[in-house]
């Protein structure tokens, strides 16, 4: 059998996709709850030991029947060994060992109560990782490392940062956990609301990082999107879920559905309007609509609701010509009213204005934004402006705009897009292309 044939055989040895990553998050969360958050390192080391054991043994002897349970058990045994070796001098060693031993007996079976307990542990870990006492960058890194099972190098690659910077953020986060004596207790009342907001913000940040276009479209960035979706669904499936949690999951699912259609074979960006809708992931769209429906129960309207409604309007349109732009414009107005004047949202709104009222109105909407310091040197603002000018046949101004956009910080696929657009300025009139800005970059 040739290597090619082997690859197409798609034999994964019966392991679930991302089993190690997800099980790592689960086991670390569970161990951290039992051992206490100040011993997060021991929890991580114990899981690491279990995975290393699997790495050594499974290739030769095969994957055990219950691979997840095996990892759980071996990690617990590693923790018990470490405690017995006297890694820390406390009186409660016996109680810890007893609890870990009890968990080991449960963790391999399919006891639904214990399943619930494990999900609850993950939830607590997300909430602690997103504690406002921890800086946002550190929150993101900590969530991905502990609950997400990402390595330092993977986080660094996804955020285009270097390993040392990410490692530093994790060290800082763990120090804050110790110094502020953060616990894995679930917050209550107003604290819960605040923490939930922080968790949602962190999750949406992870999603957007993964979603924004970057050089090479590294797969790890898509993994970020799906991890954010997984974390969101974990929250949405818990007893503390509120309609805005469901709405956030809906936004992420509906936007993630477009990922397969967003890049062509040459690695060029395909704008939302030019995407082959047949390549949108129908499963994710169905998931998105499901969560969107659930999010409408209750009278809460959050910015995630407005975002979800916009994404749903796009997903509902069967083709570009049936996109309901007036509705989208109305939703952007609502979004601006809820989330305050986020300039990126305002820019996206301007695109909708152009669609509904024509390019001249769109330009007027953009003019209000051009003084905003947050959008200075933002290539997309100039790109949208250039596009609208081109639609108005103001070719020289359009070309000047697009050239200015090329001077801004943007990635290579975006640059190629701008050059194509620039070429249109010189070409024959009336090649009505699409409006950038809705390139699938989620407004912040």
């Amino acid at each position, binding site marked *: 059998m040739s290597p090619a044939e082997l690859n197409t055989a798609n034999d994964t040895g019966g392991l679930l996709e991302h089993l*190690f990553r997800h099980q790592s998050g689960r086991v670390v969360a569970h161990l951290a709850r039992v051992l206490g958050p100040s011993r997060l390192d021991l929890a991580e080391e114990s899981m690491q030991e279990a995975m290393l054991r699997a790495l*050594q043994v499974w290739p030769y*002897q*095969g*994957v055990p029947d219950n691979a997840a349970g095996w990892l759980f058990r071996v990690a617990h045994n590693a923790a018990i060994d470490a405690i017995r070796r006297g890694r820390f001098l406390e009186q409660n060693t016996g109680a810890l060992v007893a609890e870990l031993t009890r968990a080991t007996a449960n963790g391999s079976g399919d006891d639904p109560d214990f399943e619930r307990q494990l999900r609850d542990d993950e939830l607590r870990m997300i909430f602690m990782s997103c504690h406002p006492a921890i800086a946002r960058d550190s929150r993101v890194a900590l969530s991905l490392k502990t609950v997400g*099972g990402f390595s330092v190098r993977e986080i660094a690659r996804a955020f285009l940062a270097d390993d040392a910077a990410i490692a530093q953020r994790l060290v800082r986060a763990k120090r804050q956990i110790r110094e502020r004596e953060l616990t894995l207790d679930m917050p209550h009342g107003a604290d819960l609301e605040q923490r939930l907001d922080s968790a949602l913000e962190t999750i949406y940040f992870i999603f957007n990082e993964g979603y924004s276009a970057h050089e090479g479209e590294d797969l790890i960035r898509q993994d970020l999107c799906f991890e954010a979706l997984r974390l969101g669904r974990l929250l949405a499936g818990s007893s503390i879920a509120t309609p805005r949690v469901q709405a956030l999951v809906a936004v992420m699912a509906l936007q993630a559905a477009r990922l397969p259609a967003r890049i062509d074979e040459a690695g060029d960006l395909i704008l939302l309007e030019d995407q082959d809708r047949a390549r949108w992931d129908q499963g994710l769209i169905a998931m998105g609509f499901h969560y969107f429906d659930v999010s409408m129960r209750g009278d809460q309207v959050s910015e995630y609701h407005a975002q979800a409604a916009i994404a749903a309007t796009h997903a509902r349109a069967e083709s570009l010509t049936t996109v309901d732009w007036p509705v989208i414009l109305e939703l952007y107005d609502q979004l601006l009213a809820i989330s305050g004047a986020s300039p990126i949202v305002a820019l996206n709104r301007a695109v909708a204005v152009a669609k509904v009222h024509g390019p001249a109105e769109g330009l007027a909407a953009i003019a209000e934004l051009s003084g905003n310091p947050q959008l200075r040197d933002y290539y997309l603002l100039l790109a949208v402006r250039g596009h609208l000018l081109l639609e108005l046949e103001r070719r020289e101004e359009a070309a000047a705009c697009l050239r200015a956009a090329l001077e801004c910080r943007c990635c290579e696929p975006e640059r190629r897009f701008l050059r194509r657009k620039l070429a249109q300025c010189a070409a024959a009139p009336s090649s009505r292309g699409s409006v950038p800005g809705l390139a699938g970059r989620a407004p912040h």
Partner: protein
Amino acid sequence: MPQYMLALYDDPSRWPKLSPEEMQKSIEKYMAWGKRPYVVQGKRLAGDNGRVLKGANGKPRATDGPYSETKEVLGGIYLIEAKDYDEAVERTLDHPHLDHGTIELRQLYS
């Protein structure tokens, strides 16, 4: 059909650098190779140094296994079938272990 033993040597110090995802991918590659029809079986060695037994003046003695001076240690073995060394080499050349480690190939006497 003659059988060949593959002895896989590896440098364990590189393992902890792998992420959970990379570990899983690595395991999956080995598993896929191990499912080929000519692979008879695989066995992982335990992580100790073993024992060395020697007869000295008619009094056999066991000592702890030799400490390996090299970074690479014997990790496990596979048995495969092949008609000759050429075929055995060809069947082993794309083993994922060769991305980082060494394989020693020996024919079993039949």
